[in-house]
């Protein structure tokens, strides 16, 4: 299945599901729960009545107010991370039917159109679980520090406007700027593996998220002053070379960020950086 076909297949399947959704039905939510780090996980199922426009968040809200499993056992409300519910903050990312995505934009009609259909919810697989569906994505933010994801301005005093930028260049940069650090690209990446040992973060694969952000900052006139530092970080262990080109990242990215193009661009920068280092480098 090609990329475009995979998209179309997914979208069409969901659209078809939407069309055949039964009003007034109930859907079973099978949720992988875990009480805390290093505790065993278990599955619990809940039967949730589906109202119009229901999504995974509204269903989890319903469960929070009615925390009783299908077996009639009283349990605790499910814990998950959420904030904006508009798919711009990235908080509510989880595995839904085995695949990573935001839960706020996950319409039940598109996944479970019939009475008794089952939806599974699991925490993201590449980050340590804090509780239930809530994972610790500190590594993802750490990776932004690793590549110095900022524009090194002199200070916040009034010093006039920033560099001028062409319309097309802004459009290119804008596409990259929409990354909300949700971690979908990392969870779907076969090369990005779970790493609970913080001391190994700097040598473990950094993933498409930070690679693309490095490109974003390299493309800014002031931001590129740190390009050499970024390329040093990305040329080493866990950098760009660890990419295996499975290209899942670009397909699961909810913002449609051209991640594989960023990987290619950073690959080129790394090549040039290495040649420059060889012929001009001081070290």
């Amino acid at each position, binding site marked *: 299945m090609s990329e475009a076909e995979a998209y179309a297949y997914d979208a069409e399947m969901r659209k078809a599901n939407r069309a055949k959704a039964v009003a007034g039905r109930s859907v079973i939510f099978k949720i992988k729960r875990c009480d805390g780090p290093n505790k065993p996980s278990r599955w619990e199922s809940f039967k949730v009545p589906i109202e119009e426009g229901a999504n995974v968040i509204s269903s989890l809200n319903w469960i929070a107010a009615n925390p009783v499993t299908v077996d009639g056992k009283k349990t605790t409300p499910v814990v998950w991370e959420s904030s904006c519910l508009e798919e*711009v903050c990235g908080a509510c990312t989880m595995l839904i039917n085995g695949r990573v995505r935001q839960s706020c934009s996950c319409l039940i009609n598109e996944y479970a159109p019939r009475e008794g259909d089952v939806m599974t919810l699991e925490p993201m697989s590449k980050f340590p679980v804090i509780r239930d569906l809530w994972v610790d994505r500190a590594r993802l933010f750490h990776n932004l520090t690793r590549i110095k994801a900022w*524009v090194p301005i002199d200070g916040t005093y009034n010093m006039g406007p920033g560099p001028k930028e062409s319309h097309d260049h802004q459009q290119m940069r804008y596409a990259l700027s929409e990354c909300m650090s949700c971690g979908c690209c990392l969870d779907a990446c076969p090369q990005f593996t779970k790493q609970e040992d913080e001391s190994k973060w700097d040598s473990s694969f950094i993933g498409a998220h930070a690679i693309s952000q490095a490109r974003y900052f390299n493309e800014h006139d002031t931001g590129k002053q740190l390009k050499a530092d970024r390329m040093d970080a990305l040329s080493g262990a866990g950098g760009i070379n660890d990419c295996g080109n499975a290209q899942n990242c670009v397909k699961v990215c909810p913002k449609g960020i051209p991640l594989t193009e960023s990987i290619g661009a950073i690959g080129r920068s790394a090549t040039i950086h290495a040649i420059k280092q060889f012929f001009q480098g001081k070290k």
Partner: protein
Amino acid sequence: MADEKRADEKRVIVVGGGLAGLAATIRIAEAGMPVDLFSMVPVKRSHSVCAQGGINACNEVARQQGYSEYQHFDETLIGGDFLNDQHPVLEMTNWAPKIIDLLDRMGVPFNRSNEGFRDLRLFGGSLFKRTHFSGATTGQQLLYALDEQTRRFAAEGKVNKKEFWEFLWPIVEGAGENARCVGIVAQDMRTMQIQSFRADAVVMATGGCGLVFGKSTNSVICTGGAASRCYQAGAWYGNAEMIQVHPTAIPGADKCRLMSESARGEGGRVWVPAKKGDTRKPRDIPENERYYILEERYPKYGNLVPRDIATREIFDVCVNEGMGINGTNQVYLDLTHMDPDYLTEKLGGILDIYEKFVGDDPRFTPMRIFPAVHYSMGGLWTTYTPGEYQPDSPISGFKPGDPIPVGNEPGMGMEVGAHNNAMTNITGLYAFGEVNFAYHGATRLGANALLSCIFDGLCNGVSVVNFVREGGHQPVFELDQAVFDAATKQEQDKHDKLLDSTSSGTGDRKLNPYQIAFELGEEMNAASTVVKTGPRLEKCLSKLDELKERYSKVELGDGAMWTNQSLSFTRAVGDMIIIGEAIAKAGLLREESRGSHYRTDFPERNDDKFWKASVAKFNKDSGKSDIEFVDVKAGLVKLRPRDYGKTESNAAPAQKEPVGAS
């Protein structure tokens, strides 16, 4: 790094990692003052990401068309129906162009013109293009730019980010006029550890309280809990009743999602079928059988009337006239007459949101929208020191092209760096951003929120630094530990009491925190948003009493000692009821209509009695709000009617359309 804190160092705590909190953090850290930044979520996930449309500032093009910072100021006051504190607004609008420049330098990808300059769009409340934007996710871009700078300071060890920490209580030493904030109590949301933190100044940048109204456009973290806790600790709360309802939101099962005003700014038209109960599909309804609500009622501003007016008219058409689509409370917001490619470039982000959450493509099918609670103009009461501009008599009736009475250099509106700027009535406790009541009066103009948040952080961050360095207060690291331990114990006791309720539960649904929150939202939405009446607000207050009574016996559903989200939510519900009461009570006592506050029993603005800010003070004995009305801090601009040229009223003579402002 928290543990490496030097014991003899003055520090600042910033609570909240949205635009205001991050701007303050950057400014304070830059001045060399260590900052502890507390946030319930990783700061990059703060509610500021949701702001779509843009950020207002005077700019060169508009300036040459006759616009000025001063007119931006004037528009903000008219928009706010003159309930704003005038000096801070002047200072803010004067800073605005410089703030845009700074954000530009930080790398915000502002949309560009063909020549490479920053592009501009038209927004509600102005006839000039003065809104800078970055696609349809301006708030996200601005927040990220500040997040990046904060990350840089954190990497340099100047900022200590404490994410997933919930603010529980401001530690206040002394009482009355001598009350001074010396730190906070906070809880790690993962380990549930409650701890006190010392600080020589505390900046609250905790945003709005949309969750008090149940489904709103706010993020789930916008409970208003933090503001409520400061309020209960003695901070005053100003203009609580001023709640902005956004005219165009997408009704949803879990929340109402914002459809940005930029959809109207780029040419979106609001209409309903002219014939009641017309069940045809929107595309099948011919042009002459559509009722373009805003264009017909406000020919001059058309679809770009300020938010409160748009909201009320849409509400009126649906609720009073029953003309909503198929009898529901929904109207069309139509962009289908525009070029789809143009829409994708200018509004791609928000159109995708609609398609994603509703399943229709707004480029080809008109969107269905209805007003929803969006922003709280009210917030913690703050004060300031006025700047150099002190006219002999207030300016009246400013029009484009009139001589500009004041320059745009810093210090005209407020004295920059004065210790008390944006400080609450508690010394050392500041309120920045949405939680600061000062800027937006009775209604906020679109694209002014981002500005006020960043302005607060950048301008008044300096005040915080000066206060800590030069305020002459005893350094907090010298204070006795007992004050801090007492505060920690108070919060630990509250926490333990809630945990205990798990085991002693009766299972009564009425004591379920989610049920109480749901009823609170329904009641507040029905009684205290678009249209208010005295009797309805009184009923609302008694409902709140009932909820409060039930809440006192609330039963927690989760007794876990680790990452107990229910506990955090339940604790916030109690605080939300208290803020809700202040909102409803202030609304009841303000017997007039002004801005977003619309009383059908008092439909006119009453300047004699109510050109005043409502100030709520928490009465610890009764557990309720005492409301006072105090004069608005004006003196720069004279009151005038706010009509935006509605056809029925005796509108002011139409202003000349600015030339070339296409």
